[in-house]
């Protein structure tokens, strides 16, 4: 049994200003490795995934022969409608592309993904030291709340 004590969900929320969900985490995303809470757990190709990765998988879905199209149905009945979290993420990404907007990020960690706009770029990060550990600078390794280095 993995220990998630002290770890918070790092799925993104917000539109103008992105930030972490910050609910207690209960799993890891099987694609990007970020801790996620029960509300943000999706099933993509037999893996638990965060809404960001699920949205990317959904975009890639029709081209991928191994893509299971029923992952939405699997989680449609869970609390707080995780399906809408994927739709929200997709809509958010679409709006960013349409308007060419780079959001501000009020989070404490970096994870690389196609939809994670602030990765390796600190210019747009407005970080408050009270909010948590400092963000990883470009070229450094990001650390989690416990100070352990995160898997790349």
């Amino acid at each position, binding site marked *: 049994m993995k220990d998630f004590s002290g770890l918070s969900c790092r799925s993104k*929320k*917000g*539109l*103008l*200003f992105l*930030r972490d969900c910050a609910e207690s985490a209960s799993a890891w995303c099987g694609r990007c490795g970020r801790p996620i809470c029960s509300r943000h757990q999706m099933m993509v190709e037999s893996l638990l995934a965060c809404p960001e990765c699920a949205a990317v998988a959904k975009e890639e879905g029709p081209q991928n022969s191994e893509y299971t199209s029923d992952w939405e149905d699997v989680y449609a009945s869970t609390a707080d409608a995780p399906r809408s979290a994927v739709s929200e993420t997709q*809509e958010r990404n679409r*709006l960013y592309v*349409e*308007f060419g*907007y*780079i*959001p*501000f990020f*009020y989070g404490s960690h970096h994870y690389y993904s196609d939809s994670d706009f602030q990765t390796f770029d600190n*210019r*747009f*990060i*407005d970080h*408050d030291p009270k909010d948590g550990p400092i963000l990883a600078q470009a070229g450094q390794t990001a650390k989690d709340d416990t100070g352990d280095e995160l898997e790349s």
Partner: protein
Amino acid sequence: MSGHSEPIRQAVKDGWIQGQHSVNTWFSLLGELARYKTERDRLRARYGKLARISLFLLSIMGVVSWVLLPQPLRLHPAIFIAVYALDLILAGTMILGIVGYIWLRGKVVINDFSLLLIPALKMIKDDLKPGSRVKLKLDLRGPIKEKILRERKLPPGHYVKLTETIYSDRWLEMEAVLVKGHRLIFRITNKYLRYKSTRRNPRGKFKFKTKWKKIVMVTGSIRPNAQRLQVDPVKLKDSRISGKTKFKNKKGGSCRLSRKYKFKPESIADSMTIAPQELIGLSFNLCSFLSPPTPGK
């Protein structure tokens, strides 16, 4: 109005609603108001249908009555009475339909809030500061007499008479506190231009026509928390704002964008307004002018 909460009854009665509530309270209030609007529209459509059907049946019965009128003595009196009673009932139903239709038209609640405000609020819901209250002032009355800005007679041209009436309807004022204390302010003014024309057709009859134009003027401002973000002059210089958008860098570290959108609705009841994405796009533009303060300044 039965089944609706007191604030909604009051809002419909006064024609406006304002207050400072949490976003979820606003969702519930505005959702109820949108349901009221839908019910009202449905009821009005029913009255209209009733009037049209009654008019159709009455015209048929009119022909029947006209045929029967010269020969009242040849028919059984009961048939004669029944035909004219039916005429009276149909005429009554038609009047009821017309009166109901016109009466409900006078109680128009504009639909822009459900098409624009509710979806836009849902989109920025997660950007709001937790526990903060959204300040809203909504005017639901649409273009009414009190909102006439100017009325003038235009050169008639090929018309007999041409009158232009301009209504200025600031229907939305919103102020929301975003995360980290930034403030987002929106003001939306609908400007209605009504052209009433009178012309004479070749047969000498006077014909009247009304045309509407609607201009939606959106003004959005952002007042960033100066300790975290500020308006960046370099970004302002590099910004690619389209010609339709006007920019103003205000004193006190805030900036404002305004844009006009034009529509040509057939009537004021037409639900033509901007898409909520436009409001979000304007917010994106505003936020793109901001950057963290330079250390040491």
